[in-house]
């Protein structure tokens, strides 16, 4: 075998070991109850859709569609918030002159690495006093206020890379800052907006910390929280349905990954995005 051939075989073998947990998860979700516990084989001997049927029928009093809907609502809300608020802030930081720009930009950069725990409790108190605990507002509203500084920075970098002549031409044509943003910057910013949207969606979809803090009522549960129900009532017969639901929870991420894999990997490579 050629050296290249050996390399390919080796890489594929490493990949199989690495992706084994994912393969195991999908395969287990199709195993009947007794096989989940006793079966040593990776592939189910008698594949069944029972686990999925059970999950679709209802978990913790609600159909899986209910939790899926909640997760979607939160994630789509977060995407809309980040795309709108971060692009507005980024345009101001990258292109407009105003008093306090330096210190404000410095502060914004500082908040990228700030552990959220230092603001967590007062934020919780605020939302609690507003009666918004057990609603989706605490998870979505902050995104509309550009609190994900990382994406502001990502877009600032992108806008700085756009030729200034375009802005100047727009100004000569009578465009103010608002017009320049709408007609010149925003259309060119699309790649950065798409990167922001995809990563915001995946991170919000996977986010567990904020959701476990703000959502206590089962009717408000997102998919990750609903999955927790299985952990608390670890009757072993629930293993199959638990893994079926785990697979369902990963489906949107898998779809995003298949559709945008190049963009995701390049976004992660150029900006140090945490996956």
């Amino acid at each position: 075998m050629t050296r290249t051939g050996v390399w390919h075989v080796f890489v594929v073998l490493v990949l199989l070991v690495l992706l084994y947990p994912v393969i195991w998860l999908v395969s287990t979700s199709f195993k009947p109850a007794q096989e989940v516990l006793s079966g040593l084989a990776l592939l189910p001997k008698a594949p069944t859709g029972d686990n999925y049927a059970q999950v679709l029928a209802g978990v913790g009093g609600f159909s899986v569609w209910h939790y899926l809907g909640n997760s979607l609502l939160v994630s789509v809300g977060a995407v809309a918030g980040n795309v709108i608020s971060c692009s507005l802030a980024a345009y101001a930081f990258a292109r407009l002159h105003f008093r306090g720009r330096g210190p404000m930009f410095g502060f914004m950069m500082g908040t990228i690495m700030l552990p959220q725990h230092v603001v967590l409790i007062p934020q919780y108190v605020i939302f609690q006093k507003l009666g918004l605990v057990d609603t989706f507002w605490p998870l979505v509203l902050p995104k509309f206020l550009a609190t994900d500084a990382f994406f502001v920075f990502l877009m600032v970098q992108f806008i700085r890379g756009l030729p200034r002549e375009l802005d100047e031409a727009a100004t000569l044509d009578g465009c103010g800052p608002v017009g320049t943003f709408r007609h010149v910057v925003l259309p060119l910013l699309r790649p950065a907006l798409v990167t922001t949207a995809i990563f915001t969606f995946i991170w919000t979809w996977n986010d567990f910390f904020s959701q476990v803090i703000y959502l206590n009522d089962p009717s408000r549960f997102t998919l990750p929280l609903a999955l927790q129900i299985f952990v608390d009532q670890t009757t072993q017969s629930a293993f199959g349905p638990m893994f079926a639901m785990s697979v369902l929870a990963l489906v949107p991420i898998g779809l995003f990954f298949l559709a945008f894999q190049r963009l995701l990997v390049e976004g992660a490579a150029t900006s140090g995005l945490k996956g």
Partner: protein
Amino acid sequence: MRRTQGAAYLFLSPWIIGATLLTVGPMAASLYLSLTDYDLFDPPKWVGLDNYLVMFTRDDRFWAAVSTTARYVLLSVPLKLVLALAVALLLNRPRRGGGLYRSAFYAPSLLGASVSLALVWRAMFASGGTVDRLLAAVGIDTGGWVDQPQYALFALVALAAWQFGAPMVIFLAGLKQIPRELYEAAAIDGASPVRRLVSVTLPMLSPVILFNLVLETIHAFQAFTGAFVVSGGRGGPSDSTLLYTLYLYQRGFTDFRMGYASAMAWVLLVVVAGVTVLLFRGARGWVFYAGEER
């Protein structure tokens, strides 16, 4: 000028509101709350430095959390970076399918943060799970890792290391920046592959290594989901998976000791900032910037 000034603040207004009401205000408030006893329902009661004193001198679980987190960071970050670098070196050649492989290795970084994968880990590292059986097959009898205090943390470390894809793609981008001439010159000098790795690749890559090291360390200090799911929110067995953020969560949101949890958050901030500064200081000894006088 006047007009852009006004427009600038208009564009910035969401960010300004967020920065004021959700960052600066809460930071000040949590610093204040850290000096009080606060259960969310009665008004905060001033206790001075008591929370910090109790934490440092009388709270055994706090120290359990600190030691668990320290071990978690010290084990998971180097392991993750070594895996990331090894696979990046493996993939760093122009071959067909290279992009596809890169994506496949990156995938766990997107999946690993989910509750789903943490549940898989819980099952695979349980007694009678895949890992237990594999080890037993080669004569190592550990039992299930997640049920035993001396092994449980390793399951979490494995879950963290599994997500090496994010630093890996950053390493790959860094490797592409190393000029080919350096390798050609080394080859002419008869340098072995190991020699080329040590004398060319690692020094040229050192700024990227530092970047990944800082980023991953900061993230490791804040790990939460894996520990919560694997231990069912308790941090057990015997506090062996009680990561710092999990204990903070318990104090704040199950015991409703909001003042205490705020104090813990500030200690976390100071430690993370301190470690970051130390990493940058230490980096002067080993990070090499091309074009810099030495």
